[in-house]
């Protein structure tokens, strides 16, 4: 109900002809997809990744690099970005998923830092400064994602699709095994299933979804830089997931909306906005057991 209302507002805002708010909606949708993709790992599989921004950055760089080769079509850029991210997810997941707990956190961080330093080392792509997108991504029919209205609606559609896919996934047999592995991995093994292939597949899916968000982000800021894949961004994604409540799919999307909203509000008032954001997280942990999602769904307050 509340979600429908939120979506309705998001759908109306771009019609008002205020580019700032239109871009804000696009930004929320983009980070909503990223947070949702991380929730698949953190919430459902219990895999706390601290390197999820790597896949976001891969999306950003694909959206920046492909136009240099004259490719602007969304139906090339998005699949390529998702594929590259899934491949890097497979490569890093093969190793990181052998670890658990704290070790998993650090290995994912290490893999993200590898991508970060590679991007930073690419002199011809501006190194640390990054580069301006040579051209925006184009939808079939020629509409450009450089247009905030087009971008906002495209990312909202992608978000709705992502929520649908994530829900289907969580209700599927695949999703049940992933949750069972989170609940009791030893027991799952004793029942004849190794969680490893399931987790790897999930890791690849989450990576690909995050790259989709990255493509949107590149078009939003019309820029690609290593900053988009720094560990700070990974931390922000985690922030959104926790803010909204993990393992709820919609919760992390709400977390992203609140995060982006607060970021805009607070940074307009004070340069120490991160401090206040930190206080918000502390309050959430202390007061809202079920996160923002629980607050809205009702009865989650404790």
């Amino acid at each position, binding site marked *: 109900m509340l979600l429908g209302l939120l979506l309705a507002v998001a759908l109306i805002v771009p019609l008002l002809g205020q580019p700032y708010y239109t871009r804000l909606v696009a930004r929320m949708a983009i980070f909503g997809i990223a947070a949702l993709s991380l929730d698949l790992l953190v919430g459902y599989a219990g895999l706390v990744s601290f390197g999820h921004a790597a896949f976001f950055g891969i999306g950003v760089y694909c959206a920046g690099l492909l136009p240099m080769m004259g490719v602007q079509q969304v139906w090339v850029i998005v699949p390529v970005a998702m594929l590259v991210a899934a491949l890097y997810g497979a490569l890093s997941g093969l190793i990181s998923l052998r670890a658990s707990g704290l070790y998993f956190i650090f290995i994912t961080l290490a893999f993200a830092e590898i991508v970060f330093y590679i991007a930073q080392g690419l002199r011809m792509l501006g190194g640390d400064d990054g580069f301006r997108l040579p051209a925006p991504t184009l939808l079939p029919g020629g509409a450009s994602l450089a247009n905030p209205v087009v971008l906002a609606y495209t990312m909202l559609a992608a978000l709705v699709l992502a929520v649908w896919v994530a829900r289907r996934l969580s209700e599927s047999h695949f999703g*049940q095994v992933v949750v069972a592995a989170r*609940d009791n991995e030893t027991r799952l093994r004793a029942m004849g*299933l190794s969680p490893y292939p399931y987790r790897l597949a999930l890791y690849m899916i989450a990576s690909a979804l995050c790259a989709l968000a990255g493509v949107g982000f590149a078009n939003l800021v019309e820029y690609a830089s290593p900053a988009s894949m720094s560990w700070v961004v990974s931390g922000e994604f985690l922030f959104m997931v926790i803010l909204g409540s993990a393992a709820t799919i919609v919760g992390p999307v709400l977390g992203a909306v609140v995060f982006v909203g607060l970021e805009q509000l607070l940074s307009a008032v004070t340069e120490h906005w991160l401090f206040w954001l930190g206080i918000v997280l502390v309050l959430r942990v202390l007061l809202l057991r079920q996160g923002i999602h629980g607050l809205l769904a009702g009865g989650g307050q404790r």
Partner: protein
Amino acid sequence: MSRPLLQVTGLEAGYGSAQVLFGVDLAVGEGEVVALMGRNGMGKTTFIRSLVGLAQRMAGRIEFAGVDVTRYPGYRVARAGLGLVPEGRHVFRSLDVEENLVATARSVGQAISAGDGVPAPEPWTLERVYEFFPRLAERRHHRGNQLSGGEQQMLAIGRALLTQPSLLVLDEATEGLAPLIREDIWRTLGRLKSGGLAVLVVDRDLRALARLADRYVILDKGQVALAGPVSDLSERASTIERHIGVA
């Protein structure tokens, strides 16, 4: 004894540097029910855990349906047809009853063929498990952590059955359950036995075990102290009492 389905020879196992089992031999034939008994800390649970790789196997050999599974990772032993109902049940608490049942379920075709022609029993389906445990059907949308102990045990048994096992292994089959529920569980095991399923069961209820089992094995300090057909049980009551410390 019929052809051995599970054949364990000289099993030594334990945890880290603590060895618990010192050369245990145990076999379960097709369709046979074997009771594993012994006092606390004598190695019953370690024995069962080592079958599926949850305790460290140090020496010995485990054959299942004619295949040497000693070096298999636990999940492959389970997949070869060993259905485990663990002590403490361990249902997946965030999944509901039905999800618990189907998450690890396998269709018969998916189960790795259990070696040289173990006869395929009637496959287990969700419907068949619900027919066995009507209580689970009623509670199918309740989460694992909302079930009573008895319901959890039924769920753990149902979950194991849906992996299409040729051997069902129960650790502390009725521990901590109300008497009526215990009766239920024993009846269920009896039905499974008449359906031709082999069972290895750990429990304290001598009388129930004597009714159900074909043979018994008693562990003492990590070794087999006594073994034989259950018809022995009454004759050897005093010796048995010494080993398991219950009447």
